[in-house]
């Protein structure tokens, strides 16, 4: 009884004095856009540790990864959030694509199965997240079914969205094309790998998740 009363009081006091936001921030996007690289960048910047393994092989992340209690600051503002890195969303997953990068057939089929389950889980997790960063590869055509379906659904669910055009350090990156494809959203160009424009990314994130 005493414990319950104490918990109630703590919650009450926290509500009054603790203005710090706590949200669940999801990283969504097609495979190989750099979601895990960005998650690692955020975790390195604010926690000093990596979140997951990033690679050039599509569908490297096949399970939802969560990093709790990441606090980011911009000026005198602070947000505390749980960072949710999701498997890449795709319309077609084919084990033969994995054979091309040297993965053996049995493992490739398992990877395809796990990646398919990963897509389902990513979509289910949309019910849990408060804000979403959509990570797109700015060297690729932004008008894909995956990109449009993801962003369209986030809007329909009234989830705040920040679109990130990743890989701007590459010569073939076309950030303007990404901006033109999603004119009604905040689109920010970054290189999660090299760290280009990351401070702008954090500033914009504050605007979007408010």
């Amino acid at each position, binding site marked *: 009884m005493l414990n319950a009363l104490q918990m109630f009081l703590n919650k009450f006091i926290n509500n009054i004095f603790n203005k710090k936001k706590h949200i669940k921030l999801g990283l969504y996007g097609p495979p190989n856009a750099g979601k895990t690289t960005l998650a690692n960048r955020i975790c390195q910047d604010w926690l000093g540790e990596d979140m997951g393994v990033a690679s050039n092989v599509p569908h490297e992340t096949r399970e939802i990864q969560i990093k709790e209690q990441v606090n980011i600051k911009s000026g005198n503002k602070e947000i505390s959030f749980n960072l949710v890195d999701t498997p890449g969303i795709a319309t077609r*997953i084919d084990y033969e694509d994995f054979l091309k990068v040297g993965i053996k057939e049995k493992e490739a*089929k398992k990877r*395809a199965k796990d990646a398919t389950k990963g897509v389902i889980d990513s979509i289910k997790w949309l019910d849990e997240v408060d804000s979403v960063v959509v990570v797109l590869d700015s060297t690729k055509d932004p008008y894909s079914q995956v990109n449009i379906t993801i962003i369209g659904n986030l809007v329909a669910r009234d989830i705040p969205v920040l679109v990130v055009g990743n890989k701007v350090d590459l010569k073939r990156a076309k950030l303007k094309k990404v901006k033109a494809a999603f004119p009604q959203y905040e689109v920010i160009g970054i290189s999660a790998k090299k760290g280009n424009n990351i401070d702008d990314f954090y500033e914009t994130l504050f605007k979007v998740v408010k």
Partner: protein
Amino acid sequence: MPHQCVRCNTFYEDGAEEILKGCKCGAKLFFYIRKDRLKKVKEETVNLTEKEKKEIEKDVIGMVGGDMPKEKPIVLDLESIKIRKPGQYDLDLVKLFKGEPLIFKLEEGKYVIDIPESFKKLKK
């Protein structure tokens, strides 16, 4: 529009008694296909070996952690995930995002439905 028995692949026209009572082979699961897709469907079914069919079924049941429906006849014309061959998946993102029941198409005529997941959606 034809319906095809899952077990013996017999086709029945709309309104056939067997669709309501069950196929003459005893199976009660049918699928529904558009006529224009019928020819393609038959080709696809032939292309899979028994080993591949079993492999696909095992993969999907592993994914949803459930059993194939056995009792009542079920007719389906929507699937959120189609499996062309073991390890090759086509995902209908629009259906998945809409939260429609998770239906895996193993081959023409055979589906796995993630029933616990579908019930969760109904409760909401």
